[in-house]
């Protein structure tokens, strides 16, 4: 692991040297002075006011406090470890928080609506992107990215995958968020050995999912299927695979289409997977529970986020040697793996917009993301140049499976536009109705038809309440 550089100490000494008028300091002497300062820098600086002044001049964000928030996910957690380096290099103080996904969204939705000044850098959540960007609650970033004084060319603004930046643009093409994740759904098996033992392969189609589940369910006492209970995310690829969609023609026509024959068939199929092959209480499983169950070999196959699934290959996983991965299976009407992205943005109320951009630029620089890949094992990256590097591909070669290729193929599939349903301002309302409908079917309170008809009626009510004309 690369050791963090004590930039504060280095800068202080160099400044001090210049202040003393010593223009001919050799590199070796500088290094010597730097290492001396690392040991006793604090005393030195506090004892000589001119050194402190010099340090402040070299740290452009001295005295600036940045309030940064993002929902709790691997990348923002990893980033927390590097933030002291940013503070040392720039002099800024960063207040950083990572609440859970629903808490983050609720808190920030209210904060943004007031155009408050509490935050300087915020995550733009995918399902809220349409609402937050459409309402003018985030600052366009093109001005920062296209200004060479603010963004050097070697930061490579156009390095980010097109499939990830598309949802962060408004209708005029202005960009509001720098994507830190491409969250793609693929499929992963914790115990692929059981699938192979049953004479099957990783399921490629919905039909094969059914036959594989029958073959491996309860083998070695392990449930065949597991998925987290955010069905407004995890069920949609099945819906689209059956030929259905959430809305009639998003984003223009937002009439919900949850009661179509395709939607009912998808709900029935999916709920059957949950009830027939899922673990006890599967509809209460959150994503962290799913990851834990997969890593411990307490469940087998899951169509889930790449971020979660690749953790099966980590050193602390009990299934590191038996896991396998594949594209999300194709339904009768095609393959529609979900692709979403989350991005750093600057709320319009921020009083420190330039400093906020410095933070985003640092957090999403090729160097920083590359370090996260090398040092933390982060793999859901959005910079094409890093994805195409040999060491990244090697890192995502798990048990002989090229997961990087699955990842890129999925992102490219997502760019075809079937994810438009998700970034409309009213998706959170429909998302909740879908959660309820699938739970109603899986808990056998209603048939798929009844549940989806009820979801349709409730979704229409919710959308009308928002003022949308249907």
């Amino acid at each position, binding site marked *: 692991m690369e050791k963090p550089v004590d930039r504060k100490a280095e800068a202080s000494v160099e400044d001090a040297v210049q202040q003393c008028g010593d223009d001919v300091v050799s590199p070796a002497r500088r290094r010597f002075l730097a290492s001396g300062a690392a040991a006793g820098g604090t005393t030195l600086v506090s004892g000589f006011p001119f050194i402190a002044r010099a340090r402040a001049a070299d740290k452009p964000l001295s005295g600036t406090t940045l309030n940064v928030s993002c929902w709790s996910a691997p990348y923002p957690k990893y980033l927390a470890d590097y933030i002291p380096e940013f503070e040392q290099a720039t002099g800024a103080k960063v207040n950083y928080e990572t609440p859970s996904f629903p808490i983050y969204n609720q808190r920030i939705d*209210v904060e943004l609506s007031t155009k408050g000044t509490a935050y300087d850098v915020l995550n733009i959540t995918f399902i809220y992107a349409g*609402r937050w960007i459409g309402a003018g609650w985030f600052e366009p970033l093109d001005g920062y990215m296209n200004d060479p004084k603010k963004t050097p060319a070697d930061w490579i603004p156009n390095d980010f995958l097109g499939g990830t930046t598309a949802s962060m643009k408004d209708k005029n093409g202005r960009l509001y968020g720098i994507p830190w994740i491409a969250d793609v759904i693929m499929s992963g098996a914790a115990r692929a050995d059981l699938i192979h033992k049953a004479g099957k392969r990783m399921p490629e189609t919905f039909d094969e999912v059914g036959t594989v589940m029958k073959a491996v369910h309860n083998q070695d006492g392990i449930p065949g299927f597991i998925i987290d209970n955010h069905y407004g995310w995890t069920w949609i690829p099945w819906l689209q695979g059956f030929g259905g969609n959430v809305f009639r023609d998003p984003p223009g026509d937002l009439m919900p289409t949850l009661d179509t024959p395709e939607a009912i068939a998808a709900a029935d199929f999916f709920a059957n997977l949950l009830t027939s092959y899922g*673990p*006890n*209480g599967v509809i209460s499983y959150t994503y962290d529970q799913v990851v834990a169950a997969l890593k411990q070999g307490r469940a087998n196959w899951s169509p889930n986020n790449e971020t979660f699934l690749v953790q099966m290959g980590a050193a602390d996983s009990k299934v590191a040697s038996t896991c396998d991965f594949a594209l999300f299976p194709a339904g009768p009407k095609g393959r529609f793996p979900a692709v979403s992205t989350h991005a750093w943005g600057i709320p319009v109320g921020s009083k420190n917009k330039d400093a906020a951009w410095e933070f985003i630029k640092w957090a999403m620089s090729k160097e920083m993301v590359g370090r996260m890949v090398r040092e933390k094992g982060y793999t859901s990256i959005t910079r094409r140049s890093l994805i195409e590097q040999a060491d990244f591909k090697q890192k995502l070669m798990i048990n002989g499976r090229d997961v990087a290729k699955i990842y890129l193929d999925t992102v490219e599939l997502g760019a075809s536009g079937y994810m438009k349903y998700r970034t409309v301002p009213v998706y959170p*309302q429909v998302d909740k109705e879908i959660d309820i409908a699938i739970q109603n079917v*899986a808990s056998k309170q209603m048939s798929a038809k009844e549940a989806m008809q009820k979801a349709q009626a*409730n979704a229409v009510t919710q959308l009308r309440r928002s003022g949308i004309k249907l």
Partner: protein
Amino acid sequence: MAASTGSAGRAWNRSHAFALGLAPALVVLAAITLGPAIYLVVTSLTPLNLVDPKSALDFSHPLGNYRDALTDSRFLNSVWVQAKLSVATVVLQLAAGLAVALLLNAHSRVLEAIRTAFLIPMVLPPIVVAVIWKVIYTPDVSPLHRALAAIGLPLGSLITNAGTAIWAIVVAETWEWFPFTMLMTLAALQMIPNDPLEAAAIDGANRWQLFRYIVLPYVRPTLVVCGLFRLIDSIKAFPLIYVLTNGGPGTATEVTNYYGFVQAFNFSYWGYGSAIATMMVAGVFLLSLLVGRLDRGVGNRD
């Protein structure tokens, strides 16, 4: 005449002095309680949606949210779920609280220690209680599920079964709050004089008759007040539902305040959420009036 005028003047000055002294406290109280309550009611008369801040001033259909609520099947279901949850938790809390209080109504150091231990659930932060029960109700990590499976009685998940989810919450809520009734009832039990108990015992009354005809009449007023307080508090049940079931499966445990929360915080429908909250405030206010009247009734009988 002059004396009476002087006395009236002093009384007037005194009452004004009291009013002046009270004024700062009343102003603060009004600002922190009445102000938000009035804002809540005013907001409930608008279709306020955070995405459209101008809707905060749209009073064109002031009763629109209330009309919507009366035809909103999820809202009506939430009221029904709330009623079931409230009645079940209050009845169980009173029964458990009274039973434990009767068991602990004696002077002994051991019993005092046990009494203190029973108070722990009530003083725990509600979110901690919710997490404890989340562990108990999650089959793959639950000691309860593992123990039952070990003796050949595997149990399906209680919080994902529509028939048992509400009862799972009732049990957790009862565990958390029965100590309140226990504490109040224990205090009432310790106030019962010995004379009537001894007289009845001499007359040949058995334990049940002592309880039925002497103890229960003494503690009944306390139980009534406890019941009403818990009833009001049960309407505010939130952390358990948020952590354990999120209102599910489906809407099986979606109580009214959780539904209002979803409308306001998930969907940004603050006008509609405020209307739901206003109706809840009105309900709680009516219950509070009832508590006050019963309390006065009990006081008069005393």
